[in-house]
């Protein structure tokens, strides 16, 4: 194999973990573990042009995200850093193709967010989601301040995390990406914070 593509390990990832790990038993908020779903990041002065040439829409400003199609979320984390995150487990082929074509692109550097970060998707009542996050995150995520498509790169339950609000099929959700080594802890922390809202 000329080029080992990290996304090609998808089958190994999903064989180890349940793809449908959802916690909704103790709260009105539903937390879903999307860690094994595919995602990829790119950084560098050529990253924006590279993604555009692959037909992906790009958020205009840093710390903004947008929802492309069927749960594919594109995050702009800085002027020259982008993550493409599959929240529906339907876009593995596209993400794998992006990884492969980035190998030839100039001034585009792969980011290994597939393996560095865990990914949780939180759905439920918007006000309750805000209240739950206010227990674990110091950034104001209330609706008037943190609009759809905003990104906060901050601490959640003392773990470095990326938080963004997006929607799919009219359902608003919060996407939480954090250090993969802390996912079990963070899962329990979010579960605990959400358990208040029954």
């Amino acid at each position, binding site marked *: 194999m000329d080029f080992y593509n990290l996304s090609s390990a998808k089958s190994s990832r999903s064989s180890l973990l349940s793809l449908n790990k959802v916690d909704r038993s103790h709260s009105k908020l539903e937390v879903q573990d999307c860690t094994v779903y595919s995602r990829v990041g790119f950084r560098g002065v050529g990253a924006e042009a590279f993604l555009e040439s692959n037909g992906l829409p790009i958020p205009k400003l840093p710390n903004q995200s947008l929802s492309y199609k069927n749960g594919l979320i594109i995050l702009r984390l800085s002027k020259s850093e982008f993550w493409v995150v599959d929240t529906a487990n339907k876009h593995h082929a596209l993400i794998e193709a992006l990884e492969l074509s980035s190998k030839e692109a100039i001034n585009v550097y792969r980011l290994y967010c597939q393996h560095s970060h865990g990914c949780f998707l939180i759905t439920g009542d918007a006000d309750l989601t805000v209240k739950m996050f206010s227990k674990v995150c110091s950034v104001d995520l209330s609706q008037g301040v943190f609009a759809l498509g905003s990104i906060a790169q901050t*601490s959640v339950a003392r773990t470095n995390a990326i938080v963004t609000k997006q929607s799919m099929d009219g359902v608003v959700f919060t996407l939480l990406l954090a250090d993969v080594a802390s996912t079990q802890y963070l899962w329990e922390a979010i579960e605990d914070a959400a358990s208040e809202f029954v």
Partner: protein
Amino acid sequence: MKIMNCPLNGPRNISEFVYGGEVKAMPNILTCTDREWADYVFYSENTIRVITEWWFHSPSGYWFIAERHTATDEIFKTYDPSELFNQRIDFEATSALEAEKPV
């Protein structure tokens, strides 16, 4: 908790930031003496004044520059490093290896 204004992310708790040392002009790695390189890497003036420093916002992996008074700890300004650095610096590995001569 102290609040620092990150140029990329806005005001954040100081616990999200990591200090990265003074902003100093890098000596030429191929021609400088060991003393000059040690000065650059390890030593700082440690005086009471407003200094220009590297800071790192850990959750976003973002390096930026802050101007801070070393006695009052007041932060006057934070900005993107592109205001000072606009060129990538490449280190030539082969030349550096050649410079490593046995003592």
